[in-house]
C-alpha cells in the first residue's frame, strides 16, 4: 500500500469545519491531546478514490496564522515544521460561503507558505436564500488554487473534494501575496540574514506571540546580522499585512462574488432582537436552563437507576457464581463497584453535552455569552463561564469539560477551579439525610426550615464559587491577553450527525480518561476496607459469634429486626415466621461481622487515627471514615455509614433511625445533633471530595498542580468553616 496522504483541515470557527471532517472520516476518527498541552487533537482516516487513503487532521479553528492562543499556535507550528510527522502534504481551508471574504484571509496566508492548498466553500446550500452567486472558475484562476463547493447539510461536493485530495500533486504552490511590500527595507535585510529561508515563514516566526520552542531557536542562532524591530513596530506591520491581504481579497471578490443584499437580512435580525432583549433574553435563557436541569435531574434518573441496578445484580452474580475468595471480592467490591461508579455518570454527562452541543450548533451559545459577559466580568470570569458554572449544579465533571470553549486561559482556569464549589447532585443525598436528622421542624414565611437550609446550601455554593473567583483573579499572575472578540454566527438548524458525534466523543473521553483514576482509587479503598493486620480483624467471625452468644445482638441489629418484621405484619404462619427469624439472624450476624471487620481494617484504623482531627468538628471515628471514603464520591457517605452501622440495606429511613440512635459513649449525647450536623453540612458544602473531579481537572489543566491546590484549599476552607460552626453551636 502506498503512503497515506497527510491532510490538514484548517479554517475559521463556525465554518462547519467539523462537519467536513465528519463527512470525510465518518466514524474513523479519534480524539486525543497534543503531547504536553491540553489542546484537543482530532484525527481520522478517509478513503479516497483509487484505493488511496488520507490521514486527516482537524486543526483547531483559527482566524489567521497570527496566533493569540495555544490552540492556534498548534496549527501554525504544524504548518511550519516540515519535520513533524503530521506535516500536511495538502491543506484544506474550510470557509463559509457567507463570510468568504474573512475566510480568505487565512487562505492567502496558508497559500503563501507554499503548501498545496484546496479551498472548500461550505454551506453552499445557503447561497440561493442569501442571494449569493460565485464565479468559481474565475475565482480558481485568480487564487491559483482548486475549489470545492460543498454542502455538508445536503452532502454534496464531498466527492469532488476527495478527488482533489487524491490529486494533490497537481496543485499549484504559488504565493498569493508578496508581503515584503509592507516594509521593503526590513524584508531585504531579513533575506540577507537568512538566505535559505522563506521570507513569509521567517516573518511568521518573528511575529508569533506564543513561543514556538524548537523552530524559533534554530532560526535565531545568529541574530546579530540584522536589526530586530520593537514589538509595537511589528504589531503595526502585522496590521499592514492584514490590510494588504484584504486589499488583494477585495479586488478578487469584486469580480467573482455577488450578493443581493435584500435577500440577506430578516430572520437573523428578528431572532437576535428577541434573544438578546433585556427582558426576554434573560427569560428565555432562564427557561432553557430550567429545561436542561430537568433533563439532567429528571430524565437521567431512569437510566441511572438501571445502571445502578445492573451493577448491583452483577456484583451479586459474581459473588454467587465465582468461588469465594480474595479474587472474587476484588472483582465484586473493588472493580465492579469502581466501574459502576464511572458508568453511573454517563447519562448526566451525555444529556448535558447533548444540550451544549445543540446550543452551540444553533448559534445560541454566542448570544448567552453576549448577555452574561458584563455580569461575570468583575469576578475574573467571562460570559463563557456561565455554562460550566450552571452545569456544575448537576455534576462538576462535565462542567469542567465544558470550559473548553473559553479561549482566555486565565478565565478558563479560574472557571475550572471554582466550579466544584457549586452544589452538585452528589451532595444531595448527604444534605437530605443530615437535614432530616438535625434541622428542627418549623417554618419561616411559609417555608420550612428544612427547605430553607437546603436553599441556603445551594446559595452558599454559588457564593463560594464567585468569591474565590474574585480572589483568584487577584492572585493569579497569568499573562493571557484579555481581549474579547466573539463571533456571532448565523442561526442554523443543528446537524444530527454533528451533535451525535460530540455527545459520543465527550462521553468516551470521560469514561476512558477520568475513569481510569476512579477505578484505581476504588480498588485502593476496597483494599483498605477489606484487609487488616490485627488479631481482631483476622478472627472477626469467632469474636463476633462469641459476643452475640454472650451479650446478644447489638443494638443496631435489634433495630434491624424490628424494621424487617414490622414490614410484613402478621400474615405469616408460625413456621414461616421461625424460618424468617432464622434467616434474619443469619443476615444480622454477617452484617455484624462486616461492621466489626471494617472497624478493625486498615480503614478502621485510619478512621481512629484521624479521630483527633475530626473531633473538633464534632465527628467520631465512624463519621471520620465516612468522610474519608466519600473522598471517592460524596454520596458514598451514606453507604459507608450504612456499612459501619451494619444496616442491611440502603433504605434511608433505617439509616436515619440508626443515626438518630447513635450516642457518644462518653457524653451519652446523640452524635448527630444540631452542632455536628451543621458542621457536617458545611464541610460537605465546601470540601473537595470527588476524585472524579480531581481527575478531570488534572486532565483539563494537564498538571497535578491545580487539582492539588484545589484539594488543599477547598478542604482547608471546609475544615475551618465546619470547625467554627461546631465550636459556636456546641
Amino acid at each position, binding site marked *: 500500500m502506498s503512503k497515506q496522504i497527510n491532510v490538514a483541515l484548517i479554517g475559521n470557527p463556525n465554518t462547519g469545519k467539523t462537519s467536513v471532517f465528519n463527512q470525510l472520516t465518518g466514524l474513523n476518527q479519534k480524539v486525543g491531546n497534543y503531547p504536553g498541552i491540553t489542546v484537543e487533537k482530532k484525527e481520522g482516516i478517509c478513503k479516497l478514490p483509487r484505493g488511496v487513503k488520507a490521514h486527516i487532521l482537524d486543526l483547531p479553528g483559527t482566524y*489567521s496564522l497570527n496566533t493569540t492562543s495555544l490552540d492556534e499556535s498548534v496549527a501554525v507550528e504544524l504548518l511550519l515544521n516540515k519535520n513533524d510527522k503530521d506535516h500536511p502534504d495538502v491543506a484544506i481551508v474550510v470557509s463559509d460561503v457567507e463570510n468568504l471574504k474573512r475566510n480568505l484571509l487565512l487562505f492567502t496566508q496558508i497559500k503563501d507558505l507554499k503548501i498545496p492548498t484546496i479551498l472548500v466553500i461550505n454551506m453552499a446550500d445557503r447561497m440561493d436564500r442569501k442571494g449569493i452567486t460565485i464565479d468559481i472558475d474565475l475565482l480558481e484562476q485568480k487564487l491559483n488554487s482548486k475549489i470545492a463547493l460543498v454542502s455538508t447539510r445536503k452532502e454534496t461536493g464531498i466527492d469532488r473534494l476527495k478527488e482533489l485530495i487524491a490529486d494533490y500533486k497537481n496543485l499549484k504552490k504559488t504565493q498569493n501575496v508578496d508581503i515584503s511590500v509592507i516594509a521593503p527595507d526590513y524584508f531585504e535585510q531579513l533575506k540577507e540574514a537568512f538566505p535559505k529561508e522563506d521570507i513569509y515563514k521567517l516573518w511568521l516566526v518573528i511575529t508569533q506571540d506564543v513561543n514556538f520552542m524548537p523552530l524559533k531557536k534554530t532560526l535565531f542562532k545568529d541574530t546579530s546580522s540584522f536589526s530586530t524591530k520593537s514589538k509595537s513596530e511589528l*504589531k503595526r506591520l502585522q496590521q499592514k499585512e492584514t490590510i494588504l491581504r*484584504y486589499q488583494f481579497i477585495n479586488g478578487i471578490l469584486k469580480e467573482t462574488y455577488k450578493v443581493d443584499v435584500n435577500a440577506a437580512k430578516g430572520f437573523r435580525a428578528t431572532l437576535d*432582537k428577541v434573544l*438578546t432583549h433585556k427582558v426576554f433574553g434573560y427569560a428565555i435563557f432562564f427557561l432553557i436552563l430550567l429545561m436542561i436541569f430537568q433533563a439532567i435531574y429528571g430524565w437521567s434518573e431512569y437510566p441511572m437507576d438501571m445502571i445502578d441496578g445492573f451493577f448491583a445484580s452483577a456484583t451479586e452474580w459474581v459473588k454467587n457464581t465465582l468461588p469465594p475468595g480474595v479474587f472474587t471480592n476484588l472483582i465484586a467490591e473493588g472493580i465492579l463497584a469502581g466501574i459502576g461508579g464511572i458508568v453511573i455518570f454517563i447519562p448526566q454527562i451525555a444529556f448535558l453535552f447533548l444540550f451544549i452541543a445543540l446550543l452551540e450548533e444553533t448559534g445560541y451559545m454566542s448570544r448567552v455569552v453576549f448577555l452574561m459577559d*458584563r455580569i461575570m466580568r468583575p469576578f475574573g470570569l467571562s460570559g463563557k463561564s456561565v455554562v460550566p458554572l450552571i452545569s456544575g449544579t448537576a455534576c462538576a465533571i462535565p462542567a469542567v469539560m465544558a470550559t473548553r470553549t473559553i479561549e482566555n486561559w486565565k478565565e478558563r482556569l479560574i472557571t475550572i477551579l471554582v466550579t466544584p464549589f457549586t452544589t452538585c447532585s452528589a451532595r444531595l443525598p448527604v444534605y437530605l439525610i443530615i437535614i432530616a436528622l438535625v434541622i428542627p421542624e418549623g417554618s419561616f414565611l411559609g417555608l420550612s426550615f428544612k427547605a430553607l437550609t437546603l436553599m441556603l446550601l445551594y446559595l452558599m455554593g454559588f457564593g463560594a464559587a464567585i468569591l474565590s473567583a474574585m480572589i483568584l483573579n487577584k492572585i493569579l499572575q497569568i499573562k493571557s491577553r484579555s481581549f474579547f472578540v466573539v463571533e456571532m454566527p448565523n442561526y442554523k438548524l443543528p446537524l444530527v450527525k454533528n451533535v451525535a458525534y460530540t455527545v459520543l466523543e465527550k462521553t468516551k473521553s470521560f469514561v476512558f480518561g477520568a475513569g481510569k483514576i476512579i477505578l484505581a482509587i476504588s480498588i485502593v479503598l476496597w483494599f483498605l476496607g477489606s484487609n487488616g493486620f490485627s488479631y481482631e480483624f483476622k478472627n472477626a467471625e469467632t469474636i463476633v459469634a462469641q459476643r452475640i452468644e454472650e451479650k446478644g445482638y447489638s443494638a443496631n441489629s435489634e433495630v434491624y429486626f424490628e424494621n424487617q418484621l414490622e414490614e410484613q405484619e402478621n400474615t405469616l404462619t408460625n413456621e414461616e415466621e421461625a424460618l424468617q427469624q432464622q434467616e434474619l439472624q443469619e443476615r444480622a450476624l454477617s452484617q455484624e461481622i462486616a461492621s466489626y471487620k471494617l472497624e478493625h481494617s486498615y480503614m478502621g484504623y485510619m478512621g481512629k487515627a484521624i479521630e483527633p482531627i475530626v473531633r473538633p468538628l464534632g465527628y467520631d471515628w465512624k463519621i471520620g471514615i465516612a468522610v474519608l471514603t466519600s473522598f471517592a464520591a460524596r454520596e458514598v457517605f451514606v453507604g459507608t455509614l450504612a456499612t459501619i452501622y451494619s444496616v442491611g440495606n440502603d433504605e434511608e429511613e433505617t439509616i436515619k433511625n440508626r443515626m438518630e440512635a447513635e450516642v457518644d459513649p462518653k457524653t451519652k449525647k446523640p452524635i448527630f445533633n444540631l452542632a455536628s450536623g451543621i458542621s457536617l453540612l458545611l464541610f460537605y458544602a465546601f470540601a473537595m471530595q470527588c476524585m472524579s473531579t480531581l481527575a478531570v481537572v488534572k486532565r483539563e489543566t494537564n498538571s497535578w498542580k491545580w487539582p492539588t491546590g484545589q484539594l488543599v484549599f477547598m478542604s482547608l476552607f471546609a475544615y475551618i468553616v465546619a470547625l467554627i460552626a461546631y465550636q459556636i453551636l456546641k
Partner: protein
Amino acid sequence: METTVAHLKRGQKGIIKEFTQDLLPIKLLEMGCLPGNEVELVQVAPLKDPIYINVNGSHIAIRRDMAIHIALEIIEDNAVI
C-alpha cells in the same frame, strides 16, 4: 460627524477611519474591522456592554473598552431609539 464605535446607536452605520490605540488585537482586524470598512451597530447587551456589531459582513461582539478606540465617521443616521 466623527465619533467612535462605542458611541454608535442601534442601527447607525459608519466608516472606520483609524484606531486610536496601536495595540488593538490583530484578531479584530482579521475579522474585517479595518479602516475604510463599514460598521453597523446591531445590538447592545442589556447592561450596555458588550456591543454587537456588523463590520464588513462579520457579526462580532466586542467590549466597550475596545470599541472606544475605533474612530469612525457616521454615514447613515437611522438610529433606532
